[in-house]
């Protein structure tokens, strides 16, 4: 369970997150909102790249904000990036095995290979990532995110720029993450069909504030959400 209380982030005069309070229970949860709503900022706070002005984050009883950022991976925090960051000069296996975890030796190798197996997509562990296409690189990142006994997985627009067929495969992979790892997964994406296909619950951010949360189908029909995305009738 991920509990966020009154989280505020300011960049100079801009308030990127404005007193955000939210709880993600379990399974796969969506986080959506228009551009600049603060979704990636929220992920950056959890990763430790951005220090919040105020607020608290508790994940499965641990205080994430007081943890050194490079220690969070060992604790079980995983993330993928909006612009995919698989390491080109390493093999698929090395990309996955580089994740910091408490596994050692043979267990670590078996776990990395199982993660590559899990994401599918015809990935060969020995292939160099530099030779792969965009879709497969995304899968490498997802494989790294599910390796090493994760507890909390953050996926930042994993389907951005992918063709529909690869998005469909990615959706099935993401849907399988809770069962495969038991981790709480938070998905940020603009592709509403992906979000509704994958997430049981969804929260909506707009200008750094939480404007709706609940079961995905209900949230996507919510009047405030429609207004945030499409504007109001008067404007039109």
């Amino acid at each position: 369970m991920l509990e966020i209380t009154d989280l505020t982030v300011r960049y100079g005069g801009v308030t990127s997150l404005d007193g955000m309070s939210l709880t993600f229970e379990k399974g796969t949860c969506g986080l959506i909102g228009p551009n600049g709503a603060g979704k990636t900022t929220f992920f950056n706070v959890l990763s430790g790249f951005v220090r919040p002005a105020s607020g608290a984050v508790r994940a499965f009883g641990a205080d994430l904000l007081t943890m050194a950022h490079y220690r969070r991976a060992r604790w079980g925090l995983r993330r993928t990036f909006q612009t995919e960051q698989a390491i080109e000069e390493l093999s698929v296996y090395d990309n996955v095995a580089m994740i910091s975890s408490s596994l050692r030796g043979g267990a670590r190798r078996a776990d990395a290979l199982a993660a590559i197996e899990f994401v599918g997509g015809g990935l060969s562990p020995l292939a160099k990532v530099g030779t792969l296409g965009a879709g497969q690189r995304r899968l490498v990142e997802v494989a790294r995110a599910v390796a090493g006994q994760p507890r909390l997985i953050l996926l930042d627009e994993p389907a951005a720029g992918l063709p529909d067929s690869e998005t469909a495969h990615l959706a099935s992979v993401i849907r399988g993450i809770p069962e495969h790892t038991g981790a709480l997964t938070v998905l940020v994406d603009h592709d509403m069909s992906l979000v509704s296909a994958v997430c049981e619950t969804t929260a909506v951010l707009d200008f750094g504030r939480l404007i709706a949360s609940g079961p995905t189908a209900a949230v996507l029909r919510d009047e405030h959400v429609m207004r945030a995305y499409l504007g109001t009738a008067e404007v039109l």
Partner: protein
Amino acid sequence: MTGVDTERSAAATVAGQRLALLRRPERPVHLLVTVVLVLFALFALPSLMSLYYTGYMTLVAIYSIVTLGLGLLVGRVGLYSLGQGAILQIGAWTAARLLFATAQPFPIVIIEAGLVTMLIGGLIALPAIRLRGLYLALITLMLAGAFTVVLATVNFPNGGGGFTGYNGQQSHIPPIRRPSFAGTDAAYYRFAVVVAVIMFILVYAHLRTRPGRAWAAIRQSEPAALAAGINITFYKLWAWGLAAFITGVAGGVLAGRDVYLYSINFTTQDSIILLAVALMGGVYSLWGAVIAALLMQLLPAFLQNLGLSYAWLYILFGIGVLQVLTTAPAGLVDQFPKDMKKLGGLIMKLVRHA
């Protein structure tokens, strides 16, 4: 529960098969070529070379370790150091002092020199590692300059007393001893090659395991490295320490090669030339380090033998670095085979037309 367990064990079998795949050497032909070249350098080359070239090839072996360390910093981690010459001098000084002061076996002394150099290098790195690019290069260049000044004052040990081991005499100074099993120049050349091979294996082992993965991740994307739980400062420091260690060992071998060390033979310029040849050789490949050492030590020897001034080399290196930075970032080791292929194609075309 049993269902899950069977699945797990099935997955483990698949994993075992994949593991066998991973353990196979990646490029068996490369490995074979490397082994043959090393054997040639060890057993055939000494009998083919004059004493003049044996001395210079010993230098090539020593400096290939230095450029290996520099290539590791520049190519794998992205740290531009202009102070590797100073690091080498620290290693040489420490080894010379220990060789005069103690009766320890030579191989032990060069390892100790490496460790001392690693320690001093690490102390310098603690603040320097937080800087990037130009600033790191400037700081390390100033270090190299400062160390040249320090050396000119305290001088290399020549068997005198006290901490510096320098007695101010210009004649009748005792030579720095060599290992008992490698007293002659040819034997000492073999010793230097063996040390270089061990250092290359040490670095290769690092690159193929966890630190290598961490360095690759840091060089491409620091956020991704952090998100994967890589402690960036620690791994940068590790790379710096490893480079300082092998450079210190090289300094120890250099002390035994030169027999008499004079501070006047070590200049700040060496550090700059080192970066130039490392870039020209190629910093992304281990072979690049060997080519860099050949450029730095064998080429001047050739020119000198022909009666030409080796100052021409500085112009050549300048042009070479420009060329690397503009058209061939992976250096000669990558560019040369490609150019040869192109040339071969051109010649074939001409032959066919004629």
